[in-house]
């Protein structure tokens, strides 16, 4: 044991214990899906996040444009000190079955806003991109019974063993060859054993206390990264005020809600979903008040019980989703304006076989989910493609960017344990992605262009796709929002995931 512990503890940073459900980076959807260009190569990157931090993330890179010979991957901080000092990258392994599919493992050493940099080399030269990832411990694994039993047996053997060794030593270690221990030796052995029992008991108590402290520290850190509670109050009949309260008392000391950064034009994206059934949804954009609270003058809404999901990105690029519920009276509010939007329709279908792939739009057109045959599987990265048709069944020609992008999709589990706000670039927040891109060191031709910011109106295809993967089995409702002729249209799809 030759070296300095504290130096190593510096890199340890955070160790934590925890909760039953993976949380955050949205809610219950920790894996990251990203689609974008590394120079001339179009990549689909999946980052399977570890359950504990420090832990190992599994990286999958698929090149959809071909020509890639090698892929290197490396993790580093998204912003601040250390974000420009990456370690030696790892060479991802190429699949035997698919020469354009690469996999690798990366150690994520600390919680917080990190990025995975992907460097590609191939027939068209080099390219690189960076994928922001929200790194945090999600849970702990309780010791199963066989292992716990083994540990108890080992503890007994070691505890009784050290007491017996002390006794044997006191009784016989000083005896000459062939000498038999007498009564005084036995008496001394008993005294030594009693003292050893006290010492062992003391050590076990200290060890247990230490373990409890480590566990508590870990749990505190897990709680730190759990979704903050959205505390809501209604003022003046229609003004909804939202304040964030972390699950760890230290959260408010470290995360300044007054310094959140704009994420595709807005500081907060608020989703109000009526419960039960999710048959109404509002996508609103509250403004920041002094002191870190947010407020929005609500549009006209019926009285009801609403689920609150509110997305923000902090100054380090870490995404937070505030979660809560609110009971609202009937609101006689302002008309929808700006980027605000709403939808109402049928309640979530939870019966088998009730999945739908066609959604009627408010303007008479429809949205079609090109989902393909076969059941939907959890933990499988997919491209969710949706095409938009006008009332005559023809592909629309007038899609335009909605908050700078071709579309927005929200994936919500019926038990509300999963909420993901996804864009054509994937599940990464746009604000974090901008920070990741800012750190790329390559020349302009090799730089990332994958923000999927939509092209100019009139030139947009009638199809929009979202890279994502359901984190677990369940009944999901998917809200897909596009903008057509100045008006936001929302398609809604139900999906049973196995």
């Amino acid at each position, binding site marked *: *044991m*030759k*070296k*300095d*512990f*504290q*130096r*190593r*503890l*510096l*890199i*340890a940073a*955070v*160790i*934590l*214990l925890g909760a039953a459900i993976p949380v955050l980076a949205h809610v219950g959807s920790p894996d990251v899906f990203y689609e974008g260009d590394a120079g001339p190569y179009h990549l689909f990157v999946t980052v399977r996040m570890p359950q*504990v*931090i*420090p832990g190992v993330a599994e990286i999958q890179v698929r090149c959809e444009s071909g020509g890639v010979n090698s892929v290197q991957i*490396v993790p580093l*901080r998204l912003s601040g*000190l*250390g974000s420009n000092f*990456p*370690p030696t990258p790892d060479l991802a392994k190429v699949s035997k079955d698919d020469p354009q599919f690469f996999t690798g493992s990366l*150690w994520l*050493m600390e919680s917080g806003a990190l990025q995975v940099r992907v460097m590609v080399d191939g027939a068209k030269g080099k390219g690189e991109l960076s994928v922001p990832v929200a790194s945090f*411990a999600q849970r702990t*694994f*309780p*010791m199963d019974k066989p*292992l716990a039993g083994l*540990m108890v047996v*080992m503890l007994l*053997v*070691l505890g009784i*063993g*050290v007491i017996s*060794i002390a*006794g*044997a*030593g006191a*009784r*016989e*270690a*000083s*005896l*000459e*060859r*062939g*000498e*038999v221990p*007498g*009564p*005084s*030796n036995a008496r001394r052995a008993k005294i030594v054993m009693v003292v050893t029992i006290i010492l062992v008991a003391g050590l076990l108590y200290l*060890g247990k206390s*230490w373990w409890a402290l480590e*566990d508590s520290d*870990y749990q505190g850190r897990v709680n730190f990264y759990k979704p903050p509670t959205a505390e809501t109050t209604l003022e003046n009949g229609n003004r909804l005020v939202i304040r964030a309260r972390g699950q760890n008392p230290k959260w408010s000391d470290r995360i300044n809600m007054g310094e959140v950064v704009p994420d595709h034009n807005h500081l907060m994206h608020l989703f109000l979903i009526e419960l039960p059934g999710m048959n109404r949804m509002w996508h609103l954009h509250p403004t920041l008040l002094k002191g870190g609270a947010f407020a929005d003058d609500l549009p006209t809404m019926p009285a009801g019980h609403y689920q609150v999901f509110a997305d923000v990105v902090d100054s380090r690029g870490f995404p937070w989703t505030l979660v809560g519920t609110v009971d609202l009276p009937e609101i006689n509010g302002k008309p929808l304006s700006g980027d605000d939007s709403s939808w109402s329709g049928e309640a979530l279908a939870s019966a088998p076989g009730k999945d739908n792939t066609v959604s009627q739009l408010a303007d008479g057109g429809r949205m079609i989910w090109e989902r393909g045959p076969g059941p939907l599987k959890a933990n499988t990265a997919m491209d969710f493609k949706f095409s938009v048709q006008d009332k005559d069944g023809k592909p629309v020609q007038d899609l335009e960017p909605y908050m700078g992008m071709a579309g927005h999709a929200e994936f919500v589990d019926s038990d509300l344990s999963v909420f993901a706000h996804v864009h054509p670039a994937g599940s990464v927040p746009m604000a974090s992605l901008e920070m990741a891109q800012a750190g790329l060191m390559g020349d302009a031709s090799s730089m990332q262009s994958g923000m999927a910011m939509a092209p100019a109106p009139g030139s947009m295809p009638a199809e929009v796709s979202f890279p994502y993967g359901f984190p677990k089995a369940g009944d999901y409702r998917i809200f897909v929002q596009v903008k057509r002729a100045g008006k936001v249209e929302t398609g809604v799809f139900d999906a049973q995931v196995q």
Partner: protein
Amino acid sequence: MAGTISLQPPIQARSVERAYAETASIPWYIWCCVVSVLSAVVGSAWDISWHETVGRDTFWTPAHMLIYLSGVLAGIACGYLILSTTFQKDSRLRDVSVSMWGFRGPLGAFICAWGAVAMIAAGPFDNWWHNSYGLDVKILSPPHVLLALGMIGIRFGTLVLVLAEMNRAEGAYYRKLERMLFLAVVFLMGLTVGIMQEMTNRVLMHGARFYLVMMIVAPIWIATVAWVSKNRWAATIMTAMWMAIHLAFVWILPLFPAVPKLGPVYQNVTHLVPPDFPMLLIVPAIVFDLLRRQTAMWSRWKQAAALGAAFLVSFVAVQWPFADFLLSPESRNRIFQTTNYPYFIPSTSPWVRNVFIHTDHTPGAFWLRMAIALVAAILMVRLGMSWGEWMRRIRR
């Protein structure tokens, strides 16, 4: 011995034993245990350097293999020794063994076996810990402490094995075993000094806390080896061996190329990062050996006071200016290796900037700590003397 039933071996048996002692070589099980400890020593130094250089690892790194080889080797050797002593009625060790749980064997074998079991138990515990609390990059976790206790057990067991054999030996055989004794104590001193390294960095060497820490961990081994051995230069030889092993790591590890695999990377690391240059404990050890001869007739406490004070004063006298040297440009060469930093140390760190960290905020605090260090040195020397005397009585 009072209270015991003496069954002295006949004169013929004693003669045989004496003849054996003149011609015998070190028993295989002592070699096995020494190799086991050496494996853990090399493995630990390598592993720490690995974490400071590469950063991440797997269970299967060579350093980890050496550490676990230590437990396996000691466990198998001492397990076999206990079984053979128990069941072979003509075993040479049978009447110089202790009994426990119906088994017989040298006391040191039981201690080593305990250490091996602790190391093995730490394996699944550590694996579960990784799954629950994350891959560890910190040394001080409960499963790692269990592993360390196992390693300490094997080192202490090896020392007791050597002591039992040495205290029964004479002549050339005694001297062979004495060299093994020095090595066994070196391993223990290396462990305790190493554990404190977060408080013994060179930038802390102008603070009283550094000297207090060193007085807690070093003099006890110096005194122990001096009192258990008959060699008049025992403390000097043992400390020289400690420095030699430490220097071997300082000079050999940087010969192997390696690069960081974790970030952020603040230092340009191209080879395995070595440990810091060893402290000049050899000087107080020489002073200790010289003075203990001069004070041999004194009372134990008076002698401990003189030796403890001399140890502290001589250590401060050499280490304080040596720390100045280690922070100076003259030390930045292959001999002293003061330009090697772990990849995760920012350039703003006092360590990299070569400036001292003053741990004592006032002169009063400094002198109070130095006074406590003096008391610690005296107490630890006295403890080592008693421990050494006890060790001289170990026969089994």
